[in-house]
C-alpha cells in the first residue's frame, strides 16, 4: 500500500467579499454574502485539523481576507499550532493598526496584489480610487513591522 505524504500548505479562502473589481479575477460570480460565510469556530477547527495532518503553512486568501474581523484570531491560532501564516491581500482595507495587530498575532508573510505600476492604470483595473498609493504604504509598513513581503501582479496588455 502506498502512503500519501502529508500536505504542506492550506489555502484558506475566508470570504468572497472584495473591495476591488479586477476583471480577470477567479472569485466566483455568485458571491456568498458575509452572513453565509463559515464562522470563526469552523476555521479554528480547520486549522487544528490541518496542523494535525502535518500542514506547515497557511495562506489566508479570499476574496479579501482582511475584511474578516476574526483574521487576527485565526492568524494567532494558526501560529500557535506551528503554521507559518501568510496573508494574500489587496491591502486597500488595511491600516497601521490592523497590520500591527496581525504582526503581533504572528503573521509571517504578506503578499500584496498590484494591478499596475502606476496609480492611474492600477486604480482603473481594480476600480478602486487611491488603491495603488495605499498598497505602497502598506507594503512599506509590512517590511517595517518585520514581516516578509511578496508582490503579486497579473501582467496583461493593459498594464504593460
Amino acid at each position, binding site marked *: 500500500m502506498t502512503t500519501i505524504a*502529508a500536505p*504542506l*500548505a492550506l489555502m484558506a479562502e475566508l470570504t468572497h467579499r472584495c473591495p476591488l473589481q479586477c476583471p480577470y479575477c477567479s472569485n466566483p460570480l455568485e458571491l456568498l454574502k458575509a452572513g453565509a460565510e463559515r464562522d470563526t469556530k469552523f476555521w479554528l477547527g480547520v486549522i487544528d485539523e490541518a496542523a494535525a*495532518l*502535518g500542514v506547515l*503553512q497557511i495562506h489566508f486568501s479570499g476574496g479579501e481576507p482582511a475584511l474578516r474581523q476574526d483574521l487576527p484570531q485565526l492568524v494567532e491560532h494558526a501560529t500557535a499550532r*506551528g503554521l*507559518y501564516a501568510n496573508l494574500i491581500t489587496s491591502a486597500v482595507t488595511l491600516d497601521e493598526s490592523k497590520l500591527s495587530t496581525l504582526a503581533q498575532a504572528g503573521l*509571517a508573510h504578506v503578499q500584496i496584489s498590484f494591478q499596475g505600476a502606476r496609480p492611474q492604470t492600477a486604480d482603473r483595473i481594480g476600480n478602486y480610487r487611491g488603491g495603488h498609493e495605499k498598497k505602497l504604504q502598506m507594503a512599506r509598513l509590512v517590511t517595517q513591522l518585520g514581516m*516578509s513581503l511578496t508582490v503579486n501582479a497579473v501582467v496583461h496588455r493593459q498594464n504593460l
Partner: protein
Amino acid sequence: MDPSKIPALRRGIRRQYDSARHAHVLLGPERVIVLDDIAVEITNLLDGTRTLADISSTLAEKFAADIAQVQPDVTAFIEELIEKGLATA
C-alpha cells in the same frame, strides 16, 4: 566564505520541530525545508554569536572529528542556506 563571518537565519525564517514528519524544519515565505540530523546540528549553532570557524570547531569537538573534514561540509551547508535566502552572514 570567510570563517570569521557570523551566519544566522534570516529574519522571517523559523525553525521548529514537526511532529507529523518527526523532523526539524525551516519555514520561510512559501518554503519548507526538512532538515536531516547534520543540518539540525549545524542550525542549532546559528545563534548570531558564533562565527563559521566556531561552529565548525564546536561540531568537530562534539563528534570527535577532524576539523579539516568538518569545516568544508559546514561551510558548504551554510553557503547553501545563504544562496537559498534562508540565512545571512
